[in-house]
């Protein structure tokens, strides 16, 4: 059992080598690199434009909602096409099941309509 887990020593060795590599690289950079602190270097954009206001901003999500609604039709067709090639062999049960599936997707569309996300305003 001990020797079995010893095989995982390679993983530990790789882990240590990985940490060591990063540590050595950063320490070397710290020692070798020149250091000239300037207040300008602390600004957000060094190119010179000072940031105004805060980072939170509202985004128009109109297109995002349309992408969502597109998924309703997209998913529908993804399943409808393979179903259409074999539903004859499966009989009534398959028709009913596809009906349930489309009904659930249609509910999503109805929900979107009632929540007034279909209006472009």
């Amino acid at each position, binding site marked *: 059992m001990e020797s079995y887990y010893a095989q*995982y020593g390679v993983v530990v060795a790789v882990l240590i080598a990985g940490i060591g590599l990063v540590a050595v690289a950063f320490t070397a950079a710290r020692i070798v690199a020149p250091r000239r602190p300037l207040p300008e270097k602390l600004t957000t954009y060094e190119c010179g434009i000072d940031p105004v206001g805060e980072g*939170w901003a509202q985004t128009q999500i109109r297109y995002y909602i349309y992408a969502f609604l597109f998924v309703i039709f997209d998913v529908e067709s993804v399943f409808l096409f393979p179903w259409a090639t*074999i539903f004859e062999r499966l009989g009534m*049960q398959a028709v009913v099941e596809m009906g349930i599936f489309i009904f659930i997707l249609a*509910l999503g569309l*109805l929900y979107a309509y009632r*929540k007034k996300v279909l209006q472009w305003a």
Partner: protein
Amino acid sequence: MGPLAQAVAPSHMPIVLRPLLPELILVGTALALMLLDALRPTPDQRPFVLLSLAGVAGAAAATLSLWTWKGPGSVLGGMIAADRFAVYFRLVILAAAALGILLSSYYLDRAGEARGEYYPLLLFATAGMTLITAASDLILIFLALEILSLSLYLLTGFSFRRLASAEASMKYFLLGAFSSAFFLYGIAFAYGATGTTNLAGIATALASRVNGDALALIAVGLLAVGFSFKIAAVPFHMWTPDAYQGAPTCVTAFMSAGTKVAAFGAFLRVFGVAFLPLAHDWRAFMGVLAAISIIVGSVLAIAQTDIKRLLAYSSIAQAGFILVGLSAGTQAGIQSAMFYLAVYAGTVLGAFAVVAIASVRGEEHTALSSYAGLARRRPLLGLALTAFLLSLAGIPPMAGFIAKVSVFSAAVQAGSWPLVLIAVLASVAAAFFYIRVIVLMYMQDPAPEIEGVRIESDPAGWAAVLAPAFLTVVFGILPGLLFGLLRTASVVRF
């Protein structure tokens, strides 16, 4: 006849939906509530609460009827397991959902966040949670994981006008999506190694090999990472404190209990069935994960000044304790982990329910300092929180004590006593911050600015506090009630 047509031909595969009935009821109720919200918008939450409770009760009844299921071990082409393992987990999750619903209406009213989407989302999340514990195919597990995660991302950001909530939702979403990628990658490797995504099939394929091969081991690692994100084990816990703190407290209560139980249910099934032949390899991995979760969770909890963050770090440590049971890799280990999960779910849900009631309007008073003198202002609330904290700390006669003992004894039987030693020492250290809150509640005077704040709730909210408190004590004194069920429920069938 082509292979596809053969696979779907009705004569070859009778479609048995009964083991899936709980999820169908939940999703049906959620759709009905969605329609109700769209067609008859009303600020009154009562119909939503009653209907969703009815849906959860219906699902629970359907689940209970599966306890005596005599049909095949798995249905729908091996996708859904119809075992008592799934029944047990579903019942725990449905109980958590019911308490979450009870807690929500008063909280949302008070915070001014009552919107119709809430209850359908909660039910969808519940359906995902119950589905994942019954799924016996990696693809279906992934699907259920996404159903529950997507709903929970939205619920976390439900108070989106509060920046902390929006931020929590964003963090949870980004890290959750990241972990889903790990999980999917793991599924791909599992398929590559064994040629199937079915758990039973994977177990058979792996058992017939003498040496564990690299592909399967990579799959084990990646899937463990994916699950570890969901159960919030260190080092995959970074989202937990922020998400738990930012989310509306009623959501935090539900998701801290439900997600962990659901993810652990799938975790136990995947590792206890599919990857059991590789147990020698993953046991050590789980042990390390458990140890660092317990240590990091307990140590970081000591430094917290906000009760929601404190409970979040505590839940990270609890994930570690449950992993101790899993790392035993035995039947007793699975059994103890299942007991622990039920106890954990009740305890943490109750604790967050107290927080939801005590924070008055939305998220006003969640700082630890505002719990000073709580026991004097609201004796029952203080007593309930004391019971939950003692149970989390693992002090008798609370259920948490029995849970810890059973997990530890399973691990000792499996020979991993160093892990148990670490866990015991860490739980002694962890007792400090639980007891600090109790001391604060009983022995200090309330700060003058919150002295006059009235803490109120409706009966439903009280039920969400008192029912778990009652169970925490009962299962602490009579653990045999649960262990009796677990003797048969911890056997995974396929």
